[in-house]
């Protein structure tokens, strides 16, 4: 089946199948459930050769993936929101152990108030665990990125786990065309996982023992160095993918109509897909605006962002989460990267789409107008917040 229509969650499952994940351990949670249902079907029917481990929680799911990966098996899991939060301890363990596990995370808002809809609070809360983070804008990218993520993660200079993000419902439950590459081509692209060190009963080793202050810092530096080096590897792997499969997903930052732009927005996930329409509408009116899509948040693409800062006078950063510090995470890190840059344009943060609030093109056009005018006061604005004075309170 070269081209088919499928949901983002099916695309995750087919990505794991094409990557020949040898162990799947997962616990169901809305809106991720159909990922593990699909994988269970594929394993039960014999279409996918994998050990499917049923577990009683997400913490156990990640523990099982850690153990499997430590023996040299390619491991996959998927979760969302509270499931990801429950994994927190094990996420740090996976990254510190340098195990290239790939996990789908279906971005869902954190409760309370209870919500099943899209925002990035769940994965943003895990940004400092040492996992790479990819944010996808369509189902094709979801499938392709699961496979790409294994290739990056298993590179011997990297050896870090990776999360492949999908927006709840906007991708997870959305049907759209996806090209499913032939298994043989994926096999050529992604060789079997071959870790430098693994647990093997014939050659016993002790791993991850207590490390005194003499060496702990050095081991943590190695994680930071691997994350830094992954910036180059992610770019190369996406280029190799394009050569082989004819499509690129933009490496770390995908640029859209940035040529001669005076103003740009930085956004991620499905809102950046919709933002293309907004940029096109503005360009049709002769307004020089562009879009920089943050495809990868960990590692943080600070060089690409400094390049954009050289090209435009004004940047709006759109965040679908909040740090409860001073702005959303994409904004604080963008602003942090720009402080040391030679050129510092006007930068403002727009917190938008929290808890799955819909983001139609006209809302993004409204932001683009403000960003272009550079007259928008303040540093952080909750865009579309319903207040007693706002134009549309339903």
């Amino acid at each position, binding site marked *: 089946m070269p081209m088919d*229509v499928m949901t983002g969650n099916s695309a995750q499952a087919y990505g794991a199948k094409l990557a020949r994940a040898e162990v799947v351990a997962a616990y169901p949670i809305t809106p991720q459930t159909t990922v593990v249902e699909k994988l269970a079907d594929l394993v039960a029917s014999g279409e996918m050769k994998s050990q499917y481990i049923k577990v009683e929680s997400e913490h156990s799911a990640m523990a099982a993936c850690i153990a499997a990966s430590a023996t040299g098996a390619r491991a996959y899991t998927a979760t969302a929101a509270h499931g990801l939060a429950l994994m927190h301890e094990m996420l740090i363990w996976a990254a510190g152990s340098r195990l290239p596990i790939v996990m789908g995370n279906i971005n869902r808002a954190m409760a309370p108030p209870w919500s099943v809809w899209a925002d990035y609070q769940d994965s943003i809360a895990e940004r400092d665990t040492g996992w790479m983070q990819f944010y996808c804008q369509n189902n094709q990218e979801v499938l392709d990125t699961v496979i790409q993520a294994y290739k990056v993660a298993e590179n011997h200079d990297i050896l870090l786990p990776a999360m492949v993000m999908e927006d709840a*419902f906007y991708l997870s*439950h*959305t*049907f*759209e065309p996806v090209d499913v590459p032939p298994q043989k081509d994926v096999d050529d692209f992604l060789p079997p996982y071959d870790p430098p060190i693994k647990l093997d009963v014939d050659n016993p080793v002790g791993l991850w023992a207590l490390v005194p202050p003499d060496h702990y810092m050095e081991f943590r530096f190695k994680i930071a160095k691997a994350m830094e080096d992954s910036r180059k590897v992610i770019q190369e792997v996406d280029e190799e993918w394009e050569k082989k499969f004819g499509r690129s997903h933009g490496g770390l930052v995908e640029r859209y109509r940035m040529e001669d732009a005076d103003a740009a927005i930085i956004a991620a996930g499905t809102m950046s*897909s*919709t933002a293309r329409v907004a940029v096109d509408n503005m360009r049709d009116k002769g307004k020089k605006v562009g879009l920089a899509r943050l495809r990868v948040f960990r590692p943080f693409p600070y060089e690409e962002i400094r390049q954009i800062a050289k090209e435009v006078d004004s940047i709006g950063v759109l965040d679908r989460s909040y740090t409860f510090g001073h702005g959303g995470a994409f904004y604080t890190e963008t602003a942090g990267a720009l402080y040391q840059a030679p050129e510092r344009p006007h930068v403002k943060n727009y917190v938008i789409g929290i808890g799955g609030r*819909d983001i139609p*093109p006209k809302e993004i056009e409204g932001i683009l107008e403000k960003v272009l005018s550079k007259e928008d006061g303040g540093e952080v604005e909750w865009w579309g917040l319903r207040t007693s004075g706002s134009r549309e309170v339903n």
Partner: protein
Amino acid sequence: MIQIRFHGRGGQGSVVASNILAAAAFLEEKWVQSFPFFGVERRGAPVTAYTKIDDKPIWDRSEITEPDYVIVLDASLVAVVDVTHGLKENGMVLLNSESKPEDIELGDGFRIATVDATEVAVAHGLGSKSAPIVNSAILGAFSKASGEVDIKSLEASILKMAPAKHKENAAAALEAYEKVQF
């Protein structure tokens, strides 16, 4: 771009209908996107789903607020949900109803089509009288009334994607295709 909004009740198959319609248009080499507005999807509760069809890739992922077509799987929803909200000038509402289009009072500025999808579904053994599964029948009616997707493509995607009773669902679509009034 053609935008279709589905209104139904949990259990009637609105979300599956939006996917089957997208798959049918995909068979005609269109770009498609379909998704549910995931609410409290319990049996009987109002459900909304969307299908977009275009000749080029669809980047806009926002909900449909100005549909070309509205498909209502349960006529009693009209009293609870503003089904024609944002409907484009000269757009069309397709209702599952025993009434003739001229007897439906929903407002002006758009076309109305009707089909008794419940009767068709029950005749083909799809669901029960109290909870008929009308999605395949209403899609057959949509094919004829809108002309946006060929009944053959629809039949093929029903046979591939219906969760159960593939042949009965396809037959229901064909029968409703013949019976729709507009």
